[in-house]
């Protein structure tokens, strides 16, 4: 799981190893590392030496060389030829601290921007050029743009299968450019025409010095028409709709907050309906799908950014996995606003069972969920339980004003699905926009 790990066998190694560990974790493509310090070493004594030797520059974590100027030139030529360019911006933008450079580039060159799930916040969610998320639960207009573009500029995204769908039908009309700091990611899943190895921030700075402003009326007009004609939407039936709760949170915060999530449908709705306006505003687990990540992550986020409001948008299943962390929130009086979109289901699993397994709901229904508001109260944390749409707004407002942790248990429509959806193994061109018509209506 880790990028590297060490087992310390001699207390004198600690200083060098810790320095090396920081270097490996932060160098090249950043990633977690583990230092295993056995009990006898923990209690041993040693002298602190600020100059303790570190292993020489390790090949795999050496500073990146300057990005290849020729490749950047090729990209600029491709941009001049392109009529329908699109940017796919991933977590690499956030890790590189290159959001400002990305915004300048996209606006200057008039290229619409798609953010992967983990790239959210790397480009302002309110910018007219923003197209939302691609792939399995992406917006219709982002997937249309991927299918129709003639130039795809991937900036720090690893072409995950949830993004590409079936690779053999991914971006078939496009010249594909991939900027990544990790050589092993380039060409791994998608054939790349213009590979650029390097830090995406260096690449963007170089591009920003060279790119000429252009107008792309026809293409931008097309993209805007798709946004108008195929917006994210959901139906009304009197129940509490999870998407509605998130829209209300967006209104109350104006997007000016940090948002953590669990894993599942609620996570997808959060990515779809919130408008993140700064990098690292969206704290969510990606391909690893770590249910239970949300509550501890939100507490950590508040410690890291005490100046920011922190909201948790969680599922009942995910929340149950680590709710004991309410003890931490209570002990330090950490004012996180925990929203549970409680459908009494492992909703994402249920959705697949409904759509692909003939509605056989096996081990995904949890009618015996506890009363989460009462559990919160048990920890000395303020709790709300909401079953009525009319209460949603007022509970959210009370929570926003509360001086301390809050848990809001929203009993939402149990069988709401996430749309659009690209079925697993299908291409982005096979996206389903809305629920298929019932058998009887066909």
């Amino acid at each position, binding site marked *: 799981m880790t*990028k590297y790990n060490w087992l310390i066998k001699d207390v004198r190694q600690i200083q060098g190893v810790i320095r090396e560990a920081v270097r490996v974790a932060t160098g090249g493509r950043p990633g977690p590392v583990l230092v295993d310090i056995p009990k006898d070493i923990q209690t041993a004594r040693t002298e602190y030496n600020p100059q303790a030797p570190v292993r*020489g520059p*390790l090949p*795999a974590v050496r500073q990146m060389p300057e990005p290849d100027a020729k490749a950047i030139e090729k990209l600029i030529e491709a941009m001049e030829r392109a009529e329908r360019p699109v940017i796919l911006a991933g977590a690499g933008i956030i890790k590189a601290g290159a959001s400002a450079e990305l915004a300048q580039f996209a606006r200057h060159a008039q290229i619409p921007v798609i953010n992967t799930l983990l790239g959210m916040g790397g480009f302002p969610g309110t910018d007219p050029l923003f197209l939302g998320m691609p792939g399995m639960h992406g917006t219709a207009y982002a997937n249309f743009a991927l299918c129709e573009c003639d130039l795809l500029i991937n900036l720090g995204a690893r072409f995950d299968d949830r993004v590409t769908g079936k690779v053999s039908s991914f971006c078939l009309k496009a010249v594909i450019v991939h900027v990544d700091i990790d*050589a*092993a990611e380039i*060409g791994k899943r998608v054939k790349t025409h213009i590979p650029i190895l390097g830090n995406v921030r260096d690449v963007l700075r170089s591009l920003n010095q060279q790119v000429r402003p252009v107008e792309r009326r026809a293409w931008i007009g097309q993209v805007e028409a798709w946004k108008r004609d195929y917006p994210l939407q959901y139906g009304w039936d009197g129940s509490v709709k999870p998407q509605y709760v998130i829209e209300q949170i967006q209104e109350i915060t104006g997007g000016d907050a940090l948002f953590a999530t669990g894993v599942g449908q609620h996570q997808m709705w959060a990515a779809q309906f919130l408008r993140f306006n700064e990098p690292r505003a969206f704290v969510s687990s990606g391909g690893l799908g770590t249910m239970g990540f949300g509550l501890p992550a939100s507490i950590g986020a508040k410690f890291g950014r005490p100046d920011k409001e922190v909201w948790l948008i969680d599922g009942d299943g995910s929340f149950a996995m680590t709710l004991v962390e309410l003890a931490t929130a209570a002990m330090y009086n950490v004012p996180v606003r925990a929203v549970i979109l409680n459908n009494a289901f492992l909703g994402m699993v249920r959705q697949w069972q409904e759509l692909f397994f003939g509605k056989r709901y096996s081990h995904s229904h949890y009618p015996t969920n506890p009363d989460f508001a009462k559990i919160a109260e048990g920890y000395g944390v303020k709790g709300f339980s909401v079953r009525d749409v009319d209460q949603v707004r007022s509970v959210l407002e009370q929570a926003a004003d509360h001086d301390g942790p809050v848990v809001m248990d929203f009993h939402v429509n149990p069988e709401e699905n996430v749309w659009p959806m690209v079925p697993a193994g299908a291409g982005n061109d096979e996206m389903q926009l809305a629920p298929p018509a019932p058998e009887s209506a066909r």
Partner: protein
Amino acid sequence: MSTEEKNGGPSHTIAVLVENKFGVLAKVAGLFSARGYNIDSLSVGVTQDPTVSRITLVTRGDERILEQIRKQLSKLIDTIKVMDMVREDTVQREMMLVKVAAPRSARAEILQIVEVFRARIVDLSAETLIIEITGDDGKIGAFLELLAPFGLKEIARTGKAALSRGPKTLKSTKG
């Protein structure tokens, strides 16, 4: 059958210089198993620099898979250098011990084969012989083919060792 084109495309020999530490071999092997790449053979030994080991592995796949293997190997923190050992530009050898059924009646014929292949007999019993042979894929393959009719009892192969021809070396640029 040549080892060239069994399943999964032509075979390639890759040499990797790595830090000589425990756990490194497991990481290299883990990389192959995690991604479902084949390892046909693998040999490891320390180099003239005692802090550096050399792994020689033989794998199989098309150019796209080979490129991934190269990149993934280079990405390991303990990797110092990765090099493709292209057949024409390298000397490649492997040692094999083979125990073959050798009743009195068959011995003369086996001895003749051993002679022609410049192999050596290193153990002798009433029913069997152990033969030691060193060579490249082609030689070892042909040798086994000729011995097969006598009855192969057991085989142990070291895996390949490979060096570039001429003055070129796989230098470790550590430190």
